[in-house]
């Protein structure tokens, strides 16, 4: 029994070593003394690749159809944001070549569309969409170069979040055995996107500015024989938002790309103002 009790501090020390030594971000090109650097693909904590279809089970009236102008329900717009939203003119967007405003990164995952996620190279994950024909590149271990231009999809840096593996550090500290994890290690991907061209959080012109920063957490979940991709999105935009705009979206895995139907950026005409 004494031996059992003494084992936990050792485990805790091991965990300290693991925690201090293991960088939270996969770091290609780690310093001397480490094994050969592993690419982001090799160190992936979760496999996000494949075809995924959005399941629009929430906010359907604001996502599947185009809401009426000025309807920014539950989006924490500030006064300037509300003014810009009310002035939305889809014809003007189309005429000025900005029909892809609703397909910018900060609004893209809320759109009814399909994703194709694949490895662009060993350290870059690519997300393509059929609707809007957008391509996002999630770069591991990279910082945006100074000359980066603003674009609909901006510049995204990515990192794997540390797989804690159900290891309860507090349990270790209190001397009780931790709860073991079931199944393979399972982590998530954190992505931060900057250098965005001003776009829309919703189809009907609810705006975000070029100052917006998008933070996302991608993870996976399986239940009842289906695989799901979940994305937690946090939009920080001091120009148009009074607080961070936080949503979560989910996608279901499709067996292949047979339902993939690329289509250019387009916004269906808005409904008549609600309540009329």
């Amino acid at each position, binding site marked *: 029994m004494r031996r059992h009790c003494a084992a936990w*501090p050792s485990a805790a020390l091991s965990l300290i070593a693991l925690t201090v030594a293991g960088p939270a971000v996969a770091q290609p090109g780690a310093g001397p003394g480490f094994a050969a650097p592993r690419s982001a693909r090799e160190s992936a904590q979760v496999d996000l690749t494949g075809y995924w279809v959005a399941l629009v089970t929430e906010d359907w009236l604001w996502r599947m159809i185009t809401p009426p102008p000025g309807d920014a329900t539950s989006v924490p717009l500030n006064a300037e944001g509300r003014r810009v939203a009310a002035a939305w003119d889809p014809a003007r967007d189309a005429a000025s070549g900005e029909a892809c405003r609703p397909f910018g990164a900060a609004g893209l995952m809320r759109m009814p569309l399909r994703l194709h996620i694949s490895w662009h190279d060993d350290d870059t994950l690519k997300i393509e969409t059929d609707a809007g024909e957008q391509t996002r590149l999630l770069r591991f271990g990279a910082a945006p170069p100074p000359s980066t231009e603003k674009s609909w999809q901006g510049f995204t840096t990515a990192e794997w979040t540390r797989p804690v593996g159900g290891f309860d550090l507090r349990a270790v500290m209190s001397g009780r055995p931790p*709860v073991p994890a079931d199944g393979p290690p399972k982590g*998530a991907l954190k992505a931060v996107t900057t250098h965005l061209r001003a776009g829309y959080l919703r189809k009907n012109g609810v705006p975000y500015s070029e100052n917006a920063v998008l933070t996302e957490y991608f993870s996976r979940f399986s239940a009842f024989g*289906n695989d*799901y991709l*979940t994305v937690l999105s946090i939009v920080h935009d001091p120009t148009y938002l009074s607080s961070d705009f936080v949503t*979560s979206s989910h996608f279901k895995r499709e067996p292949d790309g047979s339902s993939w139907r690329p289509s250019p950026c387009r916004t269906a005409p808005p409904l008549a103002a609600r309540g009329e």
Partner: protein
Amino acid sequence: MKRLESLLALALAPLSIAVAQVDFTGAWEHPGVFGHEDFNDRGAGPEIGDYLGLPLNEAGIRKAESYSGSWLSVPEHQCTPHPAAYQLWGPNTLVVTTQFDRVRRVAEAIRLEGTFGIDRIVWLDGRPHPPPEALHTFEGFSTGRWEGDSLVVETTHMKPGWLRRNGAPTSERARMIEQFTRFDDYLLVTTVVDDPVYLAEPFVRTTEYRLLPRPGPALGDPLTRNDAPIFYKCFPAEETTADKYRVPHYLPGENPLLDEFAGKYSLPRWALAAGAPTMYPEFAARLERGGNRAVAAPPATVTAAAPPPAGIRSMHVKGKVWAIFGAGGNVTVQIGDEGVLVVDTGSADAAPAVREEIRRLAGDRPIRYVVNTHFHADHTGGNLVLANEPLQQAAVLAHENVGLRLAETGAEAGNLVMDTFYGASKAIYFNGEAIEIIHVPGAHTDGDSLVFFRGSDVVSAGGVISTTSFPSFAASEGGSVNGLIAALNRILDITVAETRAQGGTSVVPGHGRLYDETDVAEYRDMLTIIRDRIQRAIDAGESLADVKRSRPALDYAGVFGATRGPWTTEAFIEAVYRDLAGDR
């Protein structure tokens, strides 16, 4: 050793972020309090007709479209909490605490408390889910396991509930799997509900919470004040002068709110009833193409419920009462110092095993009384074995029509039914509690009785309730649909829910799982709604064939229906039709 632990704690303090990824304890709120999505759910509530984005099948659509907001005025439903499949999407804050096993020093459960919902306990200690006959609750029974840095929770035994609080339903056969994952100070909960009765495919929802800076009870939570739990009070009140047994609902095609909703959002009416296809991107294009390309909800292709385990098994109900399952009809047993009272004796072939199970529960205490709730062989077939105690035969009590019917059939069990009554009720006092035998005329048969154990607070419902089939009756045996509804309402006069429309008085049905007041009310609602649909058709001059084609029991067939056996859905519809049409 103490010093080493202190050093460890000091060394580990900077690593709290890593620890936090599996620490869900604390108070959480939706960002912006009401959240940045699901506004309708967190505010005044989704509109009637907004079944968009839900993978409902045609049974789910039918159930949703018949929903009336006045349902919440029914006494038995007034205190209904948000069920587990919806709780996190309603207006709520969430408080997560850990419950420790003080002996083993491990977390045995996580407790989830949320406004307007009901506390949920997620067991982490590996305990199995209850047997199928166990009572269902609005929170269900949840067990959790770690998968990586996420907590995965599986929930069963949920009462009928809803996916949206506008009538979009879930059934008692629904199961739910949730994933709780923490990302920095955000908690993401992914919920997947699988319901073979009302869903064409699993329903998925994600919701996010932000950690409140102060641990402890959530702000504004009516369940807590000054960091201490307060007593939650809710009791039904008669808010209208309407019939207290009313069941508000819309008959098919008569819900005016559906057209109103479709008009408000410029949607074609068919879109509201399209069900599962409304979730997918293609649906936007279908809407744009115009209203002539209607999409219908997928058909209800209900798989049969898993059969109950074979063999005789028992479960403690409450107080001095146990239920024995697997004997044909359910057997209710009251055990005390004076001996054993048995309500219904199961089928003849199961009787020896039932006797053995009673002996296991009651030891050598003799069976003093047998009560037959009605005359059917699956409830009286064991009389000969159970009543024939070696030293003193048990008294066999029943309404006199039970004796008459048994005599007509020539069943041997009838020879023992000597203590009959012909009034409204009979009462005895046994094992320290009053026991009322209450006759409910013209229900399942013409001799039905309810048995109410006053002290134990249990009702044995006999043939009035079968949780595994539509209510059955035959005019030739004196049964009727309105008699059944009256009998169910009589049960509701007796039962009292403990809190939040669940628990309290327990009900042992003639067949199937344990019920409480809300379950009985749901069963009564079902029968009343189907009765009303068929009555309207009769009033409109529709034939039996017309009624069958309209499928008046569509939205309940997944739980109670059958296509084979002695009491199919078609047989039930035909019996109700003939009863109401006076074609008996």
